[in-house]
């Protein structure tokens, strides 16, 4: 079967040749007027999250700095993705729970583009640990650009190669990582687009 690649971005995308190799770009932008889009929820504390989630529908992504908010978000049934940015905090238990609740954890590239120096070094280290945990628990995750503007987008090959190198350097099973990332990307694509894909493990072959 053909592998499809999904990318999450935070703006309304227009054509660029940087968007090379992606089959579906999901804008997490509540103003975007494309058919397939994510619903972005930004929250700084848990009560705000709960309030905002009441209105939310569809493919909901939560973006938050707070560890407690992220943990709460994983437990909510509506939340599909925990979005990534440079200040996100996520821990062992959250990742373990995400596996149980089938919440996708996004690992984005563009957070590295926004910071420099020691901060970036720390971020790289954090991401390595995150990837290690994701592999350990087999939590669904997706490698994305997570771009906030056009110039933060990178072509697919570059993105996967980057994470391949990052994990290989950190002593993580890089082949497995890329394999899982592709599988998950496939799954998300089919969930969002394919009407014949009912849920994980059930699909219509013929009427």
């Amino acid at each position, binding site marked *: 079967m053909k592998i499809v690649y999904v990318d999450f971005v935070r703006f309304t995308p227009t054509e660029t040749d940087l968007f090379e190799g992606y089959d579906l770009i999901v804008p997490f932008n509540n103003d975007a007027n494309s058919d397939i889009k994510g619903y972005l929820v930004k929250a700084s504390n848990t009560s705000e999250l709960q309030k905002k989630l009441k209105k939310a529908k569809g*493919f909901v992504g939560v973006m938050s700095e707070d560890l407690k908010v992220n943990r709460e978000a994983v437990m909510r*049934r*509506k939340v*599909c993705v925990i979005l990534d940015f440079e200040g996100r905090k996520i821990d062992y238990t959250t990742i373990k729970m995400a596996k149980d*609740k*089938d*919440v996708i954890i996004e690992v984005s590239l563009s957070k590295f583009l926004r910071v420099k120096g020691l901060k970036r070094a720390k971020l790289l280290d954090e991401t390595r640990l995150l990837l290690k945990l994701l592999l350990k628990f087999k939590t669904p995750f997706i490698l994305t650009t997570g771009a906030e503007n056009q110039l933060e987008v990178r072509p697919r090959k570059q993105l996967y190669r980057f994470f391949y190198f990052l994990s290989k350097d950190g002593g993580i099973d890089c082949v497995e990582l890329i394999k899982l990332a592709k599988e998950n990307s496939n799954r998300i694509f089919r*969930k*969002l687009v394919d*009407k014949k*894909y*009912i*849920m*994980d*493990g*059930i*699909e*219509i*072959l*013929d*009427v």
Partner: protein
Amino acid sequence: MLKLKIKLGSPAMVITDEWIGMEVEVVESSNPCEIGIKGVVVDETMRTLRIKTDRGVKVVEKKGRAFKVKYGRWLLKVRGDLIAFRPEDRIKKGIMLIKKSKLAKIDV
């Protein structure tokens, strides 16, 4: 609490329905001999299905296999991991699985 409306005949409900009497074909399996076993389910336990084929009754494990199933007007492909419960537990656990899974299309 948000209530889910699961339609009774929707294709996602295969995992809660009775498999005995269904026409089943093994599509995916780590054991190549099992692929292509086709017939009617005669009995079901927690981990296995007994399928009555032209060449006698075969016992196929549920976990790690995928089955092609005729259900209602659909022809479905169902992963065996989803039905790997006791037959009577499947009603409760199946509904839970459907409720738990994100973006499941339940109102077809």
